[in-house]
Every structure is written in structure tokens, then in C-alpha cells.
């Protein structure tokens, strides 16, 4: 079966500017990213802030135009943003936002807002829409008496449930979650993660889950792509990638998650400055912080090569043979 979403060589460049009269510096927020999301699959995208995760999410939905590359949804080229065809497609691909309070209209009750996609896409009769709203609210764990509430009267977790219910109203095939739990308290994060897990349950919904929280990604995702400065440096099935990371950056990222029973000093601590997309190092963008960097890293951009079944990594020091031995 063809993948639900397929992106090829996506490029997004922003014009950054230094100082008042400074020359515009092109910032390659997303630089040649290709990925696939199969039906019913959840793809995690992890990386530091500034690595282009959120931009990639917006490119995948067609909210932002890509300067290069293509996105195919269900075998069709994604229409241009703002066109009638693009708007109609919103019924099939939706987004969950980092800050639910900002994503909700504070002047409308939550029932009105959950109903809005149904009104926009003219789904069903008014009675059916009412019933659908009640069903969605039940599904995300909101009480019926909360229907008339305004967003500011709800807690952070409840607001995020409203955003999720609204995104699910038209029964989409794809949900892009852009850091859906990072603005929430840890105690509330678990509720939202559990809700997302339930949604995965019936296997019809595909998800792109953007996060910097590796624990959540590991918990939710079937496959994971690790981004560094606008490029995917490693991708693979969640279990294998976390158990056996190949790229030095992924290794550092994974070792940074504290685990009970493991000494803290075994962590790989990254040296050097955090990535700045405006000043992208030559060759492998990770080389200034990499312990294994050699001359070839400074000169040549590594390609993603298969290192294990289903797993790819972009590093000059990782070879297929080595990986097989390690695996």
C-alpha cells in the first residue's frame, strides 16, 4: 500500500536579518528532508529547538509553502495553501498545537469551536453536528456540562483536549501534533499522551508527532526521525533507534534522558555551541560538537545510508557493516 504522506527533499528557507541594515542571511530551516508516513503509523520527529521540527510539520500540512521538494498526500500532490482544494483537504489532515490557549478563540464556547470544522466542511445536518460534538467531547474526556465553557475557564489539559477534539471532528487521516504536551504540566502531559495513545488504537489515524521529549516519543511513536539543523540525521523504528542509536548526535540525545539505575556520568555531554541555523557549519552540520569528527566531516555532507533494517543514519563514521555487527 502506498504511504499516506510522502515528502521528498523539502526545503524551507527563511530570510534572517542581522542588525538594522544588515544583509539578509538565508536561514535554511528545513534542508532537504524526505520522509514517509504510512497509514495508521505514528512518526516521531525529535530534535533540539531550532532544528526545524515545527517548520517541517507546517510544510507537511502545506500551511507554509516549501521552496523546494514535494509533499504527496494519499498519492496526490498537496495543493497550494489558501486554495479551495487545500481548504477542502483540511478535513483530512489536521494539526494539534503547542499552546492550546493561543489556538482557541477565547470568545467562543468550546462546543462552538469543536463544531467549527463540521460547519466549515458542511458535514451532516445541524442535529448530526450536535451529536458529533457530544461524541467528540466524550471521546477526549470532557464532561457534557463543559460545552458552554470558554477556553480560559478550563485547565491546560482540558484545553488541549478541546484542540484535539476539534482536530478530530472531521475524522482526519493525518494528525500533525506540534509539541502537544510541552506547554503542559508533567501531571497533565500523561493524560494527553494517554488520549493520543487511545486514538492510535483503532489504527486508522496516522500521526506526525513533533517533540523534544524523548520519553513521550518513545512511548507513542512507531518510527522516529532525528533532526539536526534542518536535516534528518537518523531515522528508524522507535525500538531499534532508542536501543541502538548509530548517529553520534542521536546517541548524545538518548543518553541525555535520565534513567533510573544508570550512573549519570555515563552520559555523553555535547560540547560547543547549540545549533544556529543562520550559521550552518560546512560538511556535516554536527561536526563542531562531535567527538568523532574528522576531516571528511568538515568537508562533505553525509548522506542517509541504511545501517540496519529500516534504519538509516547520516554519518561518515557509520557504515552498514559496522551497524550489522553492532546489531
Amino acid at each position: 500500500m502506498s504511504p499516506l504522506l510522502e515528502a521528498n527533499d523539502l526545503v524551507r528557507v527563511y530570510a534572517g536579518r542581522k542588525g538594522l541594515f544588515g544583509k539578509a542571511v538565508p536561514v535554511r530551516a528545513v534542508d532537504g528532508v524526505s520522509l514517509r508516513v504510512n497509514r495508521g503509523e505514528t512518526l516521531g520527529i525529535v530534535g533540539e529547538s531550532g532544528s526545524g521540527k515545527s517548520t517541517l510539520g507546517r510544510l507537511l500540512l502545506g500551511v507554509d509553502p516549501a521552496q523546494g521538494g514535494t509533499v504527496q498526500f494519499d498519492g496526490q500532490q498537496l495543493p497550494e495553501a489558501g486554495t479551495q482544494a487545500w481548504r477542502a483537504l483540511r478535513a483530512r489532515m489536521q494539526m494539534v498545537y503547542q499552546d492550546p490557549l493561543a489556538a482557541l478563540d477565547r470568545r467562543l464556547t468550546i462546543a462552538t469551536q469543536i463544531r467549527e470544522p463540521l460547519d466549515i466542511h458542511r458535514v451532516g445536518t445541524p442535529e448530526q453536528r450536535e451529536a458529533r460534538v457530544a461524541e467528540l467531547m466524550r471521546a477526549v474526556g470532557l464532561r457534557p456540562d463543559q460545552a458552554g465553557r470558554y477556553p480560559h475557564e478550563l485547565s491546560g489539559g482540558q484545553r488541549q483536549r478541546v484542540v484535539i477534539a476539534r482536530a478530530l471532528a472531521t475524522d482526519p487521516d493525518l494528525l500533525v501534533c506540534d509539541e502537544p504536551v510541552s506547554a503542559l504540566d508533567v501531571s497533565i502531559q500523561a493524560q494527553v499522551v494517554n488520549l493520543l495513545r487511545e486514538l492510535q488504537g483503532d489504527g486508522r489515524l496516522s500521526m506526525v508527532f513533533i517533540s523534544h521529549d524523548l520519553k513521550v516519543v518513545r512511548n507513542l511513536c512507531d518510527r522516529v526521525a532525528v533532526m539536526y539543523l534542518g536535516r534528518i540525521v537518523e531515522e528508524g523504528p522507535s525500538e531499534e533507534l532508542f536501543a541502538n542509536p548509530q548517529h553520534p548526535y542521536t546517541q548524545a540525545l538518548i543518553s541525555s534522558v535520565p534513567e533510573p539505575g544508570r550512573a549519570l556520568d555515563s552520559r555523553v555531554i555535547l560540547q560547543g555551541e547549540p545549533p544556529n541555523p543562520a550559521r550552518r557549519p560546512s560538511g556535516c552540520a554536527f561536526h563542531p560538537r562531535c567527538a568523532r569528527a574528522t576531516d571528511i566531516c568538515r568537508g562533505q555532507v553525509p548522506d542517509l545510508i541504511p545501517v540496519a533494517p529500516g534504519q538509516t543514519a547520516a554519518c561518515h563514521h557509520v557504515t552498514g557493516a559496522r551497524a550489522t555487527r553492532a546489531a
Partner: protein
Amino acid sequence: MTFANPSETPTRRRGVLRAATSVPPAVGFGMLWLALMVLCALFANWVRPYDITQMDLSARLSPPGTPGHWLGTDELGRDVLSRLIQSVRVSLVIAFGATIISAVFGTTLGFLAAQFRGVVEHFVVMLADFQAALPFLIMSLAVLAFFGSSMWLLVCLMGFYGWERYARIARGLAISAGAQGYAAAVVQLGATPRRVYLHHILPNVASTLIVSMTLTFPEIILMESGLSFLGLGVQPPETSLGNMVGFGREYLTTAPWIMLGPAVVIMLTTLSISLVGDWLRDKLDPTIR
């Protein structure tokens, strides 16, 4: 003011009830005054005791309190109360008409700028800067001097007063709503620009626009008064508040009631609008109910 129990959830009905019972006295006064002014304007023809041009030369410059002329008469023996009532009507029509024109025009341009960005935005911002830099009174004088003064021209001209404020506010708020907030989320839901602007952005920025309207409204009354005072606004024998003040100035020392009446009406009306507008903005915002 009673303290609401924070644990109880106010239903909408109770909110309305509380809003009706807890109007501050100043706002209550403002509402009453505005209602009186609107009634005056609507029923001017029935309310006023005399025709505005009816002269009573034997009772010229009678002071207030004279039986039959409770607010006195002017230099031609015309009843000040009758003229005041007619003035309220004319001035309110001009101020309401102009405020609505400038709000609609400015908000539309602001939203267009926010939606299309690029060249459209540059053009709108340039127009707004041009408008802000223009001495409006002098431009009005020029236009009225060339085309002659008529009620319609006056309303339209006043309608161009202050639109740049609405345009700037609407543009700024729409852009910030679209950049990361609810508007972007609704666009992503598949809404048409029309829906985004009319259903979401407009209600959200309405409170700010209403405040801006309550600022522009008195300014337009004053502007019209100024123009009439200079003799280019409302033309005699028709009368407006500014027109009355303008013609009354010659008798300021001998018969001050001719201009004090309209001056007090101008002041109270503008004050009432500011008070009510401010209160209304708070009431319209569900987050600070």
C-alpha cells in the same frame, strides 16, 4: 459590588442579570443621557416647541427662564431650546454616520492589508501615514470651500477622519492573530478568509475598535463644531451644535445662554460616550466578566 463565590460557575443568564444590576452610576448617567440625545434626534420634529427659523422679534435675547422660551432666545428671537434639539439631531447624524463610515472603511483596509500583505499592505500603511500627517481641518476647509457645504458631503468628509487608527489597529491585531494564534488555527481548519475575519478576528478585535470609536465620535462632534464655527460646516438656517456655539460667540458677554446650552450638550455627550464605551468594552470581553 458583591463578591462572587469563585467556586460557583456563573451561567450566562446570571451574568446578564448581574451586568444589568451592577452598572456604575456614572455609566448609568451616560446611558440615560445618550438615550435622551437619541430620542431628541429621533423625535426632534415633535419635541421642539417652535420652528427653528421662527422669529419673535419682540422677545429677542430673552434670558433662560422666560415663560415660553425656557432656554431663552437668540439675537433674532428664535427659541434656543428648539434650535438645540434640532442641533442635537444634525450633529448626531453627522457624528454617527461619520464614525461608522470611518470604522468600516478603516477596519476593512486594515484587514485587507493583513490578509494580502506585500504591496497591498505597503499601500494601506502609506495611505494611513498620509492621512495621519495631513492637517485634516485644512483639507476639510479646502474641500468644503471648493464643493460647497452639503450634509452628505460633510458626513462623508468626516467619515475620513480617524480611519487610519482603525486601519492600524485592525491590521496589527489581525497579523498577530494570524501569526501564531486562533486565526492561524482556524485557517488550518479549512475556513475561508471571510469566515476567519468575520467570525473570529472581528469579534476579537471589536472591543479595541469600540474603544477607538468612542474616541473618534467625540472628536468628530468637535471637528464638525469647529468647521461650523468657521462657517464651513452646517449652513444657516440649518443648525448644529458647533454652528450654535459659533454664532453665539458674538453674544458671549451679553447673552451667554445662546452658546452655553450647546456647549454643555457637546461636553456631556462626548463624556457619556467615553464612559459607556469603556464600560461596554469590559462587558463584551468574556475573559474579564
